[in-house]
């Protein structure tokens, strides 16, 4: 049985290093592929140019007034009738009104003390409903 001990093993006694490169390259490619650069996102609007004022027929305006409590008052064109709604209901109102008047413009007037998020809620509802003619103003008086 001593013969067995004398026989030189054909298996290398070194740690196989050649596959290390493959592992490292796999890691490299993994990180290259999975790295996601945080993309900026939000609600895009186009501001008017300075001195750009357009006269609009009153009946083409949907007045939306946002109060500090988050309550939204909707007034259509020349009528004095005020409808009190929540920001989410704006979407349905816009869809309904724009169907009867394609030239409709949303005039969003926000009270100076209104938290920003309520204005975003209204803007969100309008953009979800597909509105593109939106005027953002500060409620005066």
């Amino acid at each position: 049985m001593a013969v067995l001990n004398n026989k030189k093993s054909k298996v290398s006694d070194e740690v196989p290093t050649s596959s290390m490169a493959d592992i490292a390259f796999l890691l490299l490619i993994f990180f290259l592929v999975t790295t996601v650069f945080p993309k900026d996102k939000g609600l895009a609007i186009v501001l008017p140019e300075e001195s750009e004022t357009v006269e609009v027929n009153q009946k083409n305006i949907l007045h939306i007034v946002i109060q500090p409590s988050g309550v939204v008052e909707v007034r259509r064109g020349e009528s004095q009738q005020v409808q009190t709604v929540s920001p989410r209901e704006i979407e349905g109102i816009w869809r309904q009104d724009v169907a009867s008047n394609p030239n409709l413009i949303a005039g969003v007037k926000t009270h100076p003390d209104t938290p920003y998020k309520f204005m975003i809620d209204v803007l969100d509802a309008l953009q979800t409903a597909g509105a593109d003619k939106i005027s953002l103003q500060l409620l005066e008086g």
Partner: protein
Amino acid sequence: MAIKQGGFSRKSKTSDEIPSSSLADIAFLLLIFFMVTTVFRTDSERDIIWPQAEATEKIDEKKKNILNIWVERNGSIFMNDQPYTIEQVSEVVGPLYAQSDRRLVISIRGDREVPYMTMDQLQKELVSAGVVRVVFATELEQRMTRQRR
């Protein structure tokens, strides 16, 4: 003069394989190089609570053409990690806008509780700087979270 054993048939002691053990080191160096040099954003995040919107969409503009204006809850304004007063905004943005070939997009990153007064002033400043494209930065609101609220 016959060479004993033949000079050419002698076994060379150097390995006839390409040394592959150092390849790993090269790859790891590359890995570390990319991890270290990757810069994610130029200005650091301010402490704000994002407003949420369902209609949130990605800004279709190169990162270098986007300027972030941060508005914190107390109304303080930051651009590129520098604090500014609201009156300074147009002075700062104006030249940047001209430099960018009128391609600059302003991303307004406001806290959800900021009074609208501040936001309106900011918009007026941007209009006087000639900026046209503005984005109100928001987080995407899922229908599910909306229903739960």
